[in-house]
């Protein structure tokens, strides 16, 4: 059976840049970062102060009390994004598709916000029992299950947890399942809600969070800025999408993944290069056909220089002609949701002929000497783009996108 083409017919986002994909793109396309002093926790107890939070988020704007009691914030973010993606695609109105639709989500942390609260009851307040819904609230697959229950999607569904590559692994595997005919459609993406006190203290101890802001590829970069949110994509076999007259936002043409087999936190350029090459091979693309890379670009000294070496290894001379930017400079690093936010950013960049910049850039770093679109967005028409995700533990996932027709 010939491999099928897989298109994107719905997008949904909630992030620090906005509560839907229109607000998200409006900020990205103007190069406006949303990194500010944290409001959700007491900053006096932390060594870092800034983050990319979803400001003004109220659970009651999206869920009634009955629903909310079961939903950790990471599930809420994923459901809000899924709702926008599904509504914009129109896919829920096709009953025959339900059995042939899977839900694949990514999350690095799962419901650790509610876990933090539940365990604080035991450890701090001397309670002898935790809430009986703690397990279904906290489980990492809760988002997948809630989406499939709400919309009646009964196809193959699961959750991937590969640290900061989680969402790219989820989207990539959903793409492969549709391309190979296992399913016809999928909800794929990721969500994360990392702003619980215990988790923030753990990031503080890792010493990788910037005291200031996220400056990927720039001299004086000093770490990540944590972000939160969710993004979901409706993926669909192209022939079905065309036959029902769906609006095609973009296309996924390849997926590659690799493991560094090297270090639990330090990146290795060869691992990143291997995943990028695999994505190009999977898409049957030559390196010169790629115009833009939405980089992993975390803003740590180690990641960014390693990623640049990986891009050079994968692209050779064409690396000089690539446009590369990190939108984490604007929406922060949303961990397991990062790849999903960046997938939406990449699809909209191709669609709108506008490449979002790497914000907060101050000075060129000779170790990151690629065209990284500093500070200002760029009008440019590209046919193909990659989106990179590299997780702690050396797990890499790269998606190749094509502009929608």
């Amino acid at each position: 059976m010939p491999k099928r083409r897989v298109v994107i017919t719905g997008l949904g986002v909630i992030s620090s840049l906005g509560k839907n994909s229109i607000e998200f793109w409006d900020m990205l396309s103007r190069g406006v970062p949303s990194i500010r002093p944290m409001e959700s926790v007491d900053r006096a107890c932390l060594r870092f102060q800034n983050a990319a939070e979803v400001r003004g988020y109220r659970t009651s704007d999206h869920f009634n009390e009955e629903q909310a009691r079961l939903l950790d914030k990471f599930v809420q973010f994923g459901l809000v994004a899924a709702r926008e993606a599904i509504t914009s695609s129109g896919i829920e109105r096709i009953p025959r598709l339900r059995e042939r639709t899977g839900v694949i989500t990514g999350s690095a942390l799962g419901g650790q916000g509610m876990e933090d609260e539940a365990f604080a009851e035991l450890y701090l307040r001397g309670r002898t029992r935790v809430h009986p819904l703690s397990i279904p609230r906290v489980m990492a697959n809760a988002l997948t299950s809630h989406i499939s229950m709400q919309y009646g999607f009964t196809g193959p569904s699961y959750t991937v947890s590969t640290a900061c590559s989680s969402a790219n692994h989820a989207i990539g595997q959903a793409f492969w399942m549709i391309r190979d005919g296992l399913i016809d459609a999928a909800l794929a993406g990721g969500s994360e809600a990392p702003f619980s006190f215990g988790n923030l203290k753990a990031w503080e101890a890792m010493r990788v969070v910037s005291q200031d802001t996220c400056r990927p590829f720039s001299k004086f970069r000093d770490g990540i800025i944590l972000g939160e949110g969710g993004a979901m994509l409706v993926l669909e076999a192209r022939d079905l999408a065309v036959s029902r007259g769906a609006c095609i936002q973009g296309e996924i043409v390849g997926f590659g993944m690799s493991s560094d087999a090297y270090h639990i936190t330090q990146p290795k350029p060869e691992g990143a290069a291997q995943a990028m090459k695999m994505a190009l091979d999977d898409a049957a693309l030559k390196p010169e056909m790629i115009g833009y890379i939405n980089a992993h670009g975390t803003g740590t000294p180690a990641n960014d220089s390693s990623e640049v070496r990986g891009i050079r290894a994968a692209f050779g001379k064409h690396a000089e002609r690539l446009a590369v930017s990190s939108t984490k400079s604007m929406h922060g690093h949303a961990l397991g949701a990062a790849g999903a936010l960046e997938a939406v950013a990449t699809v909209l960049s191709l669609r709108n002929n506008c490449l979002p910049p790497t914000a907060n850039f101050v000075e060129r770093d000779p170790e990151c000497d690629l065209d990284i679109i500093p500070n200002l967005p760029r009008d440019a028409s590209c046919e193909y783009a990659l989106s990179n995700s590299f997780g702690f533990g050396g797990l890499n996932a790269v998606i190749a996108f094509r502009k929608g027709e």
Partner: protein
Amino acid sequence: MEDNKLSDQITAKVIETISKVKKIAPEAIGLESTFEELKMDSLDGLDLFFELEEAFDLTIADESARSLRNVRNIVEEIEKLISKRDLTAPAQS
């Protein structure tokens, strides 16, 4: 004299902590030993700073931690943080 005594104590504690983190004999660690010579990677560094913060009850800033390269640097950083803390601590009544 007092300063030297403090410094000796700090040096001994730093060497003891490195010995505990890296599971190497204290005799193998000198003031001029670099992280590289001690075969300490970034995670060993994180572990060491955590143990030192606990042992001396102080906070080593991320920026300072990134600039420390050998045992002498660590001892000097801890001396600096202790003297800063003693200066700002309220007088005992």
